[in-house]
């Protein structure tokens, strides 16, 4: 009975607080609606009007759907997400400043309203103020799309997922601010904490990762920002990432852990805020903090980020281990002093605060120690060949001039990646060669200096093992650290590079149907240029010749003949892969048209069959189309009778 009365009271108090707060947010909601309107539907209206005007003035058709999507891709991350985050900050200050002033605390904490209802009602009203303008303006944008007859299917997926993401991250960011507000003693500290954590946390992880990558052999230096740790405590930065990825046409929201993390963290943050607020001391208002954990965390993160930044800047400037440590000390001590001055309102507690600096030093020493000793065997871990299903392989400089480093399959318009086809090694004997190369790399690097030291080098050798149990082991090495006159290494690389599997996989010419080539631009040895539109048979001959030459050449010798070479550039068109073809197997279930972006081909003495074919058909002679006609040709081949063109330009 008692608990029922209590829960009824709480509900009543919550609703009462919510309604009261909401009533006082109407002005802000109207303002937010207006701002979102200016930055989303209005931008689309302007973009559509502009496109219509260009269409009318120039007499050709701009794809309105594409224009709409392009505007959306720019506006969503740049304006809508930014505006939402700005609103989160404004609302947080307005909603929670009451708990940071002694006078207002006297009023609110003496009211017959529980703290859960006080905070909960405010949070709910702010969420409404945040979300309603967003949803309204997204709906208005749909209306704009309908008015301009934009194909909804073109952008609906991206549009809805973006809306969902912005809504989620607005909530997550607001919950994060709520948590910081409860932990902070003043609104100034709250804002500073929010800003500092959001900037320095990703920076700390990023720089830590880069530092580890520069020390530990084999560690991946490539940054995947959709990986949870980079922005785990930084909702403001995380808000942008999937939108930016989406705008760039990549698989935007594919990271389930990323999404899950923010869903879970949002719940944890608001639950923690509500829990802590119940025990928050009223007398903490106007003091430095109510709960010390964020302050301690922020000081550590800021110190670490600035320390690592200083270390890397000094190291890249002076290129020595000593400069790394000097930079680390300079950056971290400055950050620590600034953090203490801000949080302590001066330097009174500076001396005592160095205990916390000591914690940072211990943590860094542990981190550095782990890195230089190989991160608990990370450096020497080499999978057994029999457990490997296949290896995505790149061998650095040996394949620099060949188009065999993997390729992208894109959608019809070249905006979205359908598949990435890497160079892979599957056969057991070839996998053993890769493992042998890996073993040699590990031995060579370790023999050059252990414990390791920080080194600035470009990792060009990539070995990604896909294990039979489904796991993946990734290792990246800098060949320039060991390959200088190292015959054992060169030999091991050659063994892998010269396998047919290595040459064929990841080479688009082995999957290329001739009908995908629209035209070829040929640059001769006398600075002459020719545009070719050969017929299907000749194109097939050309592709076969290139494949044969590639197979017969030794990859590691590819640099030997670079003078007096012919250069081929391919212009492709979108096609639907023939059922059962190799290309169709690569795209899997995708049923739309696809394009390949083919690299330029240097045709030197390593390509005798290709050269012979070019000579046989006289493609370097003057009978071909002038380069200035290339663009016209492109337009023509999309619409005109192709056989007529073939008669004109190809022998």
């Amino acid at each position: 009975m008692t608990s029922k009365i209590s829960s009824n009271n709480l509900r009543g108090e919550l609703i009462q607080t919510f309604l009261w707060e909401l009533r006082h947010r109407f002005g802000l909601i109207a303002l937010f609606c207006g701002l979102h309107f200016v930055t989303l539907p209005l931008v689309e209206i302007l973009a559509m009007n502009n496109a219509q005007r260009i269409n009318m003035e120039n007499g050709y058709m701009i794809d309105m759907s594409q224009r709409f999507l392009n505007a959306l891709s720019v506006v969503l991350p740049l304006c809508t997400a930014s505006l939402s985050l700005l609103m989160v900050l404004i609302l947080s200050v307005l909603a929670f400043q009451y708990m940071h002033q002694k006078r207002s605390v006297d009023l609110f904490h003496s009211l017959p309203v529980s703290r859960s209802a006080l905070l909960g009602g405010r949070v709910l009203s702010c969420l409404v103020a945040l979300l309603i303008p967003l949803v309204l303006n997204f709906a208005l944008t749909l209306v704009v799309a309908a008015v301009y007859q934009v194909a909804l299917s073109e952008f609906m997926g991206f549009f809805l997922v973006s809306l969902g993401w912005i809504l989620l991250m607005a909530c997550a960011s607001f919950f994060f601010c709520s948590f910081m507000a409860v932990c902070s003693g003043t609104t100034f500290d709250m804002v500073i904490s929010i800003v500092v954590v959001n900037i320095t946390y990703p920076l700390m992880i990023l720089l830590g990762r880069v530092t580890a990558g520069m020390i530990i052999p084999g560690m991946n230096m490539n940054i995947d920002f959709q990986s949870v740790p980079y922005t785990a405590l930084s909702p403001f930065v995380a808000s942008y990432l999937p939108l930016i990825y989406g705008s760039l046409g990549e698989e935007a929201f594919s990271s389930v852990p990323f999404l899950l993390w923010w869903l879970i963290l949002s719940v944890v943050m608001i639950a923690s805020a509500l829990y802590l607020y119940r025990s928050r001391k009223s007398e903490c208002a106007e003091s430095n903090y109510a709960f010390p954990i964020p302050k301690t965390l922020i000081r550590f993160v800021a110190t670490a980020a600035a320390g690592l930044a200083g270390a890397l800047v000094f190291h890249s400037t002076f290129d020595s281990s000593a400069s790394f440590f000097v930079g680390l000390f300079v950056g971290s001590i400055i950050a620590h002093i600034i953090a203490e001055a801000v949080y302590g309102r001066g330097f009174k507690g500076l001396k005592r605060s160095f205990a916390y600096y000591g914690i940072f030093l211990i943590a860094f020493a542990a981190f550095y120690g782990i890195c230089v000793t190989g991160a608990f065997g990370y450096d020497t871990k080499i999978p057994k060949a029999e457990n490997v299903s296949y290896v995505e392989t790149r061998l650095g400089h040996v394949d620099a001039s060949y188009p065999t480093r993997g390729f992208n399959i894109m959608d019809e318009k070249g905006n979205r990646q359908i598949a990435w086809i890497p160079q892979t090694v599957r056969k057991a004997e070839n996998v053993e060669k890769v493992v042998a190369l890996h073993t040699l790399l590990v031995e060579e690097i370790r023999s050059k200096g252990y414990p390791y030291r920080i080194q600035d080098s470009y990792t060009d050798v990539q070995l990604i093992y896909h294990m039979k149990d489904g796991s993946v082991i990734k290792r990246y090495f800098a060949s320039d650290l060991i390959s200088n006159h190292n015959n054992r290494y060169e030999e091991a690389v050659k063994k892998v590079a010269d396998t047919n599997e290595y040459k064929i996989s990841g080479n688009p010419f082995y999957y290329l149907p001739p009908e995908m080539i629209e035209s070829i631009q040929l640059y001769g040895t006398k600075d002459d240029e020719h545009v070719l539109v050969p017929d299907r048979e000749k194109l097939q001959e050309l592709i076969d010749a290139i494949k044969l030459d590639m197979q017969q050449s030794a990859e590691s010798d590819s640099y030997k003949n670079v003078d007096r070479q012919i250069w081929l550039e391919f212009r492709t068109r979108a096609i639907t892969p023939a059922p059962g073809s190799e290309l169709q197997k690569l795209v899997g279930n995708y049923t739309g048209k696809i394009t390949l972006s083919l690299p330029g081909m240097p045709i030197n003495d390593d390509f005798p069959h290709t050269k012979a074919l070019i000579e046989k058909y006289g493609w370097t002679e003057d009978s071909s189309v002038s380069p200035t006609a290339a663009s016209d040709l492109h337009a023509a081949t999309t619409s005109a009778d192709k056989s007529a063109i073939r008669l004109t330009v190809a022998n």
Partner: protein
Amino acid sequence: MIEVKSLVKKFGSTVALDGISFTIGGGSVFGLVGSNGAGKSTLLRSLAGIYRPENGEILVDGQAPFENSAVKSRLFFISDYPYFFQQASMKEMADFYSKTYTSWDAQRYQELCSLFPLDTNARIINMSKGMQRQVALINALSVRPSYLLLDEIFDGLDPVMRQLLKKLVSSEVSERGMSAVIASHNLRELEDLCDHVGLMHKGGVIFEQELDTLKLGIHRVQAVFKPVPAQDAFQGLDIIKQDSRGSLLNLVIRGQREEILEKLNALNPVFIELLPLTLEEVFISEMEVAGYDIENILK
């Protein structure tokens, strides 16, 4: 009834309330007096459920007020610097309280507004300190609280408003049985209004008594002796303060009037007179006993 039992409240290493205990009965006006930093405001905030005690307990009608909406709905606290929403008018504040307190009495609010010379549409932030307190008081009394907690409420009020305040509080106490706890340094006003008084110093309660009993239990004595008896002769009297000018003795003595007279008359004074003490004089005397070095401070 408010019961305070061994209440301890600390701010970091500072002990603001050091195990104090007392009881405030229903339908009374309890005056809290004490030196600066004695813990009066802290006690009021603890009573209002703003502060959570570290130790001991506060019971308002048998329940602790901290995070207890049911208890808080019977309490109203006006702090030493009352807070109002930014740019709010009296009407808006009244609207807020009417939605927050179920006991809000709109008719009473109108009555009170007519008593105080205030513009209900004016921004409170533009009002004087005294007027802001009047606004706070109107809201407080419109809530019809069972317990009214007032911190330095007389500050900034003109004499007429002080009289009105005392009249309103007295009538609420007599008509509805409301209890009021008033912390103030204005002992003259408290003397008029309070029936009980508690004296606080350095986080402790020196005494807590009915005001009449307190005043009847302490006396200023002016007596002339020829010759002045030795100090031993005054043994048996609870002398709080003593000074002499020749044969004239000024004494502040705790005890019943008759008992004091009897003992002093036994020493054959040439002249003797017992005068009542004002609350301020009682305060100063008791504070001196408690170690408040008044003479040095006032030097």
